[in-house]
């Protein structure tokens, strides 16, 4: 039964890819557009370091690595579940009802039906940037570091994905929630690209620790480069991202379930 269900999701996914390939011209412009986002993030870091040699106690190579890891994680999450922000429209148009009468999870169907293939370009760019930034910062090529380099963007993507889903569930309670979620998702990307040392205490507590954004790029970068945290956190935190990611995904899953339950008891 479980693998039949997997087949179903895989088929839904490939149907989505085929659907989007129907619009070739817009596909190409979208890929180029999504690449631009990634490029601008990197350019942003370069521009900042033309003004200052260090940022929050970190040099260009280190911040570049954070930006690359954050960008790659975000691109992966955006590819997988970035479109759940459209839940609002689905609630309003009743598409959600159509999904609820099928024998599969509504969230998984939404993710599979909405995967944005055009964002593949940004993921590819993100991966390349991680490799370039790791080489530029001379990350020591030990098995542990390499594993951390691979795991970090995935854990980061889970954290971003959890934020995407959690913010989208607002639509279950408040259909006119507008762009409120983007503050946390796109805002979160900007937050994670820079060392958390540059932010004010309250802001840092909220974004870095409560939401877990510090585990997307900041702590893993410290571990990758063997640097001590200027804020005094234990070095082990650099390896904690997967655990944080699982917690974030669990929390988002619970919020989603509560949202669906609320939707079903209100119908709007």
């Amino acid at each position, binding site marked *: 039964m479980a693998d039949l269900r997997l087949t179903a999701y895989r088929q839904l996914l490939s149907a989505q890819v085929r659907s989007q390939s129907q619009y070739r011209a817009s596909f190409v412009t979208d890929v180029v557009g999504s690449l631009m986002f990634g490029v601008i993030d990197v350019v942003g870091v370069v521009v900042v370091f033309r003004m200052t040699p260090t940022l929050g106690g970190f040099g260009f190579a280190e911040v570049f690595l954070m930006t690359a890891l954050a960008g790659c994680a975000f691109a992966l999450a955006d590819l997988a579940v970035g479109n759940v922000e459209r839940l609002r429209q689905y609630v309003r148009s009743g598409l959600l009802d159509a999904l609820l009468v099928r*024998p599969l999870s509504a969230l998984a169907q939404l993710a599979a039906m909405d995967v944005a293939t055009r964002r593949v370009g940004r993921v590819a760019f993100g991966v390349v940037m991680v490799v370039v930034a790791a080489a530029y910062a001379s990350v020591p090529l030990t098995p542990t570091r390499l594993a951390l380099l691979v795991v970090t963007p995935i854990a980061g993507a889970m954290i971003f994905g959890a934020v995407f889903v959690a913010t989208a569930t607002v639509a279950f309670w408040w259909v006119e929630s507008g762009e409120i979620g983007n503050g946390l998702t796109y805002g979160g990307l900007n937050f994670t690209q820079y060392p958390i040392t540059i932010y004010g205490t309250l802001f840092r507590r909220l974004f870095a620790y409560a939401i877990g954004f510090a585990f997307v790029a900041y702590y893993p970068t410290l571990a990758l480069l063997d640097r001590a945290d200027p804020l005094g956190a234990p070095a082990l935190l650099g390896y904690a991202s997967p655990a944080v990611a699982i917690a974030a995904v669990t929390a988002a899953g619970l919020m989603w379930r509560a949202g669906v339950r609320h939707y079903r008891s209100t119908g709007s």
Partner: protein
Amino acid sequence: MSVIETRGLCKEFTVHVKAGWLRRRARVVAAVDGIDLTVQRGELVGYIGPNGAGKSTTLKMLTGVLYPSAGQVRVCGLEPVGQRTRLARRIGVVFGQRSQLWWDLPLRDSFMLLQHVYAVPAADHATRLARCRQLLELDPLLDVPVRQLSLGQRMRGELTAALLHGPEVLFLDEPTIGLDVVSKQAVRAFLATLGATGDTTIVLTTHDLADIERLCRRLIVIDQGRIVHDGSLDDLHARYGSRRRLVVDLDEPLKAELTLPGVTVESSQADGRRITYALDGTTTAGDLVSRLAELAALRDISVLEPAIEDVVARLYTRQRPDSA
């Protein structure tokens, strides 16, 4: 064996009414207000009511989309919300105004995808698809992207999509809405064929009463969340006094008044050469015609079926006895 069973089914919504600049007053509205329903296997039930009567809300509770506020529901012996995915395999749902199909892909692909979504064995899928292809004349449409199909063509696709996993119950929410006459007839003919096999229970909501006349032996009328009629169409006519009419054109006016039980003259035109009789069912139209033929030379006759629209319109506006 009953396939659908509800007892005291209720659904309340809280609506927020503006009361001043920022204040909103919460008001509880019962969309469905205590519905008892038993549908047997193989029945074809029409569910009608004015806009906002609670038709779609009932359907959503039966299909597991919405939680009831109170009361019990069992569909195929399952509890719709709690056992949603299990129930989903045993019911088919067609929403007239939203699609189960993949907009940008050929119709064929949607069917293939649904086979995987419902994990239908290949042989069963092929048999059911072949039947629908034949009955709904789908072959020329299979390779057309759904977005290029006309509404009527798409509805034929939707019906197939809802049936490929062999559901025991088919729920249709306004399946003929917006269709042209030919497409409506195609949909009705298909549903009639499906219903005639007795394997599939069909519940449909509609605003088009011709759907009901053509398809449903049982008619449930709801208004303000309550059932106001549950029975056959004939029952409805009998209860609300609607009559068939017989219009006769005669060469000459009748010389003598015609008296038959249950027959009244509704109007007389053209100096008595066109007469409209209303029949309440005591005397058949055939008896009336043969009696008339003895009295005068008939030029033309026509039978007007009672307009169900009129009956239903009266029903909707009628004060409910228990609310008086």
